């Protein structure tokens, strides 16, 4: 670097314009200068053998892996600036239907950071992990209370993993009865993971249409049922935000032909403490802890998708599972009392691992997303049974308030009381003004809100799926409603559509060219032209 053309030497330009969202942040690779470092490692005193004394030539890397080379200062600047180009729940309302973007209490971050939880190796001996085992067992108990099921596995890392696990449990169950069934029923409003999981579970999907109420068409269901049906996957309330009122009849019909009922728990938030999947007749339930129990989504994950099952499926659960051991540590009577005294000296393992008798086997490298479980337990304990019920009430109240308030402005394809989310539609607006659901979404970004889920569920034209969650205040709902009303009103004005098409103009970048991304695929910095 010289004064005149100091750029000639390699090395990135760390300049960027924070607080001015519309300035692009260079990649870390562009900030890199050869030989620059941030890392610092502890002094070990281990002899400093060279690589060729340690690795046979044929296995040795010749050139180091080329990563970015930046100072700690530039590392911090880069990722802090990137964080300023990212919307999040902590910045504003995130009414993304089906995703339950509620506020995530900070106490859960503290819990997940406790060294006694975060610092535990997953293969440590049982005597050194009693706290973790107790934690998982406690969570299992409360989730069984919430769902009305008998036991749960915590290995699945997300909802979809739970689905596949549940399908394999269904398969194991049918296998154990010498039955081989080939089909799984899924409503047409179902989330994409359901059919995808069915395929991976080795089943074929039979789609059941929704009726005009937005619920499972009972006639179609009955028509599809026979002994080739392994079961049905449902979420209730369904993805239209509506409670499947015929659930008892559905359960009876499916059980009648020997099928099982799978509950996709992504929408459990709506019915916490009101009604339990087990009482509705479900046999297998997965929970999205990252939705219902407020694990932050982390920009796409991690979550946790535990699967709870009814008594008859317990023996098939993945293993090993944490379990409270028979109370050999609580001896009774005078003779035993002596033993107790000596036992008191040596630590007693009250919890251990068990493998269910006919386990389908392992579905995770270790025990699932454990730190997510700790977060969920903290969340649940703060709320308690009474608080979880309140969560459902307020979530449903918020969604219905929006539904009624906005029903004059947007279509409400299924205009009856909804549960925790409401599916609106821009179909009339589109017809009248040309404004599409996507435009509404992009305009809403300008107003400081995240957009609702758009074009899902697939069965609704120009769908706008709004899930306010219970942690948004009435005032925030009002602001959201007003913004949505303003957007609709603008569209009718002259130039209104042009304004909408230009949106969003105040975000870090404007409308992004998705087609180009797919066409001139640039999946890494190295594939840039």
């Amino acid at each position, binding site marked *: 670097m010289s004064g005149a053309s100091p750029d000639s030497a390699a090395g990135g330009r760390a300049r960027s314009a924070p607080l001015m969202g519309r300035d692009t942040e260079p990649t870390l690779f562009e900030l890199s200068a050869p030989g620059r470092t*941030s*890392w610092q490692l502890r002094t*070990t*005193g*281990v002899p400093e053998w060279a690589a060729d004394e*340690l*690795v046979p030539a044929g296995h040795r890397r010749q050139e*180091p*892996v080329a990563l*970015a*080379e930046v100072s700690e200062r530039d*590392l911090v600047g880069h*990722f802090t600036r*990137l*964080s*300023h*180009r990212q919307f999040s729940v*902590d910045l504003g309302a995130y009414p993304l239907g089906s995703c339950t973007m509620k506020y995530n209490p900070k106490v859960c971050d503290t819990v997940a950071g406790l060294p006694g*939880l975060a610092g*535990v190796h*997953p*293969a440590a*001996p049982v005597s*050194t992990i009693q706290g*973790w085992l107790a*934690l998982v067992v406690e969570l299992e108990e409360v989730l069984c209370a919430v769902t009305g099921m008998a036991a749960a596995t915590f290995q699945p*890392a*997300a*909802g979809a*993993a739970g689905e*596949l696990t549940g399908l394999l449990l269904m398969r194991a169950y049918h296998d154990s009865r010498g039955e081989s069934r080939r089909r799984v029923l899924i409503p047409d409003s179902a989330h994409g993971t359901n059919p995808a999981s069915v*395929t*991976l579970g*080795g089943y074929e999907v039979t789609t059941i249409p929704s009726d005009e109420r937005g619920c499972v068409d009972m006639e179609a269901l009955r028509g599809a049922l026979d002994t080739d049906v392994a079961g049905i996957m449902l979420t209730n309330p369904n993805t239209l935000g509506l409670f499947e*009122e015929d659930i008892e009849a559905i359960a009876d019909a499916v059980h009648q032909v020997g099928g099982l009922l799978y509950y996709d728990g992504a929408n459990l938030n709506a*019915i*916490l403490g009101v009604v339990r999947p087990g009482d509705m007749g479900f046999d297998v339930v997965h929970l999205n802890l990252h939705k219902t129990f407020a694990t*932050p*989504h982390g*920009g*796409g*994950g*991690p979550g946790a998708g535990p699967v709870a099952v009814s008594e008859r499926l317990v023996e098939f659960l993945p293993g090993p599972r944490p379990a409270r051991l028979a109370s050999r540590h609580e001896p009774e009577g005078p003779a035993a009392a002596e033993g107790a005294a000596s036992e008191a000296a040596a630590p007693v393992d009250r919890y251990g691992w068990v493998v269910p008798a006919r386990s389908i086997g392992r579905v*995770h*490298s270790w025990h699932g997303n454990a730190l997510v479980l700790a977060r969920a337990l*903290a969340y649940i304990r703060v709320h308690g*049974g009474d608080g979880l019920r*309140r969560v459902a009430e307020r979530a449903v109240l918020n969604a219905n*308030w929006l539904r009624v*308030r906005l029903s004059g402005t947007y279509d409400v394809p299924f205009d009856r009381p909804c549960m925790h989310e409401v599916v609106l539609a821009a179909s009339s607006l589109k017809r009248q003004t040309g404004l599409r659901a996507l435009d509404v*979404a992009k305009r809403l970004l300008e107003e400081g809100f995240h957009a609702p889920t758009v074009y899902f569920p697939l069965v609704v034209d120009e769908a706008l799926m709004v899930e306010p969650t219970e*942690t948004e205040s009435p005032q925030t709902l009002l602001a959201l409603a007003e913004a949505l009303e303003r957007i609709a009103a603008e569209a009718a004005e002259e130039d209104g559509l042009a304004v909408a098409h230009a949106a969003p103009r105040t975000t*870090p*970048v404007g409308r*992004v*060219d*998705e087609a180009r991304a797919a066409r001139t695929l640039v*999946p890494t*910095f*190295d594939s840039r032209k």
Partner: protein
Amino acid sequence: MADYLPHTEDEVRTMLGFLGLESAEELFAAVPVALRLAGGLAMATGEPEPDVLAHLGELADANRAHQLVCFAGAGAYDHEVPPVVRALASRSEFVTAYTPYQPEVAQGVLQAVFEFQTMTARLAGLPVANASLYDGASALVEAVNLGTAAAGRQTVWVSSGIHPHWRQCLATFARGSGHRVVEVPLDNGTTRWPKDTAPGDVAASPGAIVVGYPNYLGCLEDLDAVRRLADAHGAVMVVAADPVAAGILRSPGGAGADVVVGEGQPFGTALGFGGPYLGLFCCTMAQLRRLPGRLVGETVDVEGRRAYVTTLRAREQDIRRERATSNVCTNQTLMAVTAAVQLGWLGTSGLAEVALRCARGTRYLREAVLAIDGVEPLTGDTPVVRELALRTPLPAATVIDRMAAEGYLAGVALDALTGPAGDGSVSAEDAVHGLLVAVTERRTRAELDGYAAALDKAVRS
């Protein structure tokens, strides 16, 4: 009443009134009365945050593993995670965002993932990486799904040097996919691939061949042989690589791998009792359209400014539904962001240095423990770089318990991974007596010496 709900009682009343309702119960009119929970949930009522924190703190204190000097590995390692990485990766914009469905307000996560993809692709020596999968095991399962689909064949040859848990997951998911998983045994720590390319005990030709590098016993496998085997069968070559050891070992992509998978936990993620971790997945351009899960690509916005977006979405479950390449939706993005930060912190020289220091520590410890009477290498003279399998005179579980009392997490008993019967990687005898020991860059010479002394005592007493 302690919770996070904003509504005051007044507001609830007013809102209910607006809906023409008198009580919250009426909100649930659609739920058949017979199904409704009568007495509320059978669980405790809410407790204030500080009480809950105290309870969780007690559970945490009931663990001891984190206080032991860690020599356990087997895919989960005690690497240095500096405060700067924790601080950046825990910024709430990254933590409390959702999947970047609206790219205009998600450039932060998208760019970080793009950088993650670039770094892991370079690490693997392949041109494409996805945005994360759940963990190493799920990445392997997806690789096998990809390989069998690409080759149009259901058989998979899997080296028994693949982590036993991962192989167990493969077996579980094969119940659904119908894959025929053939585990190829080890010999002195490396895979005994069939001599001729169509081994007698394997009926069908494999669609995918899977090998570890290093394998789970720390041993270096012959990648060229696997490539030749894959070519002979027209199979997809899948390498399960340790991403830290990759800093000192030849590039799996360079050695011909079509798919490289791995466990990304070593890049900034806490041990955390096994999760959340990070499934790494890289592949060739040829396999791009079969890539499972999310992929971020570079593009531009309306004004031509550089921007990022998730792309090739048509592969994914929300669009392709039952024909999707995978069912993954929620993944481990935050861990991918964390890995990008950690790899940014390490940089070119840091990753190489960590890998080198692991290898040095492993060698130092190997020499020290092999001097102990009765302690032998389980894999003979096969070179190891990051992990070390020992045969101890006592059952390894006993050794581990004894060493825990001395302050060491001595390693992982092989039978805890394989079961008491062993598997294709070790005999029953070796499974019970096998101790897998990992040495990271964090272990000091004093700790290594202390370990050897404690092991000496443990096996003698």
